[in-house]
């Protein structure tokens, strides 16, 4: 058994949140550069501005996007770890609170719309796994794209074609609103809520990496091709790049159902990982 003080988790969340706010992931940057070479006109202008933005963000130590997001923390907690110190969710919130002092505070009551003032609470998801380490992933989730996400309760008869149609329809209906080129996280299977979680988890995979299962990877490739054939383009200015990638996660589901969740991520992919 290993003892970990939750202060260490709080500090890790703080570090990851700070880095995430200021940097795109390597794979996102590479995908944007590749896309910029393909586009012309207003679409090219948009991608060039986006790439220059990251240079300015680094030079001036400013968040790449003002929407520093809802703090999503995914944790894989080894079952041989014994946590001591402040309660886990409090530790995570404490890390978020400290990191967001220089960032925008975007979290509010859903009815009164009163801002919580420090970007807490974080959305913490814990999976208990074997071993004695703690794997943390920090995903600051902007809501321009989150608003365009959808959940479909398909029937088994709709099958593979229905899954691809759900993914492509979601991106088509989102149009120019979620800051394309988007990254598309897809959950396939599970139940109503776990399917949505799979879609979120899918967004933590690097752009350009396909699912290890061949049949799932084939869905990712086909959906991406169909999305880019829509012609929405960067920022909706028409063009070849509407999505940078499609990433699916799957889980067994009920014999009566086929849940599909589509979680849209804008082109500003920020995701940090640490293992304690």
């Amino acid at each position, binding site marked *: 058994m290993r003892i970990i003080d939750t202060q260490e988790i709080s500090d890790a969340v703080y570090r990851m949140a700070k880095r995430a706010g200021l940097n795109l992931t390597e794979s996102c940057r590479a995908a944007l550069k590749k896309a910029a070479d393909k586009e012309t006109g207003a679409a090219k*202008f948009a991608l060039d*501005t986006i790439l220059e933005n990251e240079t300015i963000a680094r030079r001036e130590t400013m968040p790449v996007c003002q929407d520093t997001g809802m703090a999503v923390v995914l944790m894989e907690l080894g079952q041989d770890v014994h946590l001591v110190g402040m309660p886990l969710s409090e530790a995570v919130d404490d890390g978020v609170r400290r990191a967001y002092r220089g960032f925008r505070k975007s979290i509010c009551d859903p009815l009164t719309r009163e801002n919580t003032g420090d970007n807490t609470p974080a959305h913490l998801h814990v999976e208990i796994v074997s071993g004695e380490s703690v794997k943390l992933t920090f995903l600051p989730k902007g809501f321009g794209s989150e608003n365009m996400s959808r959940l479909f309760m398909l029937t088994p008869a709709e099958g593979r074609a229905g899954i691809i149609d759900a993914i492509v329809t979601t991106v088509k209906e989102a149009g120019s609103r979620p800051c394309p080129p988007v990254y598309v996280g897809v959950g396939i299977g599970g139940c109503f809520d776990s399917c949505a979680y799979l879609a979120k988890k899918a967004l933590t995979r690097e752009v350009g990496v396909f699912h290890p299962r061949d049949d799932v990877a084939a869905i990712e490739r086909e959906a991406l091709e169909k999305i880019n054939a829509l012609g929405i383009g960067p920022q909706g200015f028409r063009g070849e790049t509407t999505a940078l990638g499609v990433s699916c996660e799957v889980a067994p589901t009920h014999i009566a159902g086929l849940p599909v969740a589509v979680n849209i991520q804008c082109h500003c992919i920020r995701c940090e990982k640490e293992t304690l």
Partner: protein
Amino acid sequence: MKKLTLPLSKEQILSLRAGDCVELSGVIYTARDCAHRRFMECLERGEPLPFDPKGAFLYFAGPCPAPEGKACGSCGPTTSARMNAFAPTILKLGLGGFIGKGEMSMETRAALRECGAVYFAAIGGAGAFYGDHVEEMTLVAYPDLMSEAVYRMKVKDFPLVVAHDAHGGTVYE
């Protein structure tokens, strides 16, 4: 690249065509979801808005806190479609137009045409770029809304695309 300085004359607005890339300088006002709701409440009570709407440009945006030595933090556009519910009413007060991101509704586009106003798309996700091009920023109204408050911004060379022009043209189709 066309360089424009606010305020824009009617002729200047009418000369813009969807798809034009411009660099805009001058004074604009930020307002997003909650601020727009308060504008509507103002109008219902017969009170003036906290800024002079004649010829003004509203920027749908909520900035990050300003770092030491800077006027403004990261400040890119938010999704304009959420402001469709308010846009025609606001435009009728004589606005020059809006700055945001993404397509707006047919109703908003019709109002832009009727009022001779223009909608510019800023590049979403380029927050540091836009924040770095804000020279002055002052609070105008609703400080309790924090980043959603109304700020007056003096901006320099904002890169924008004419998204919906004053003639019904659009960059999105």
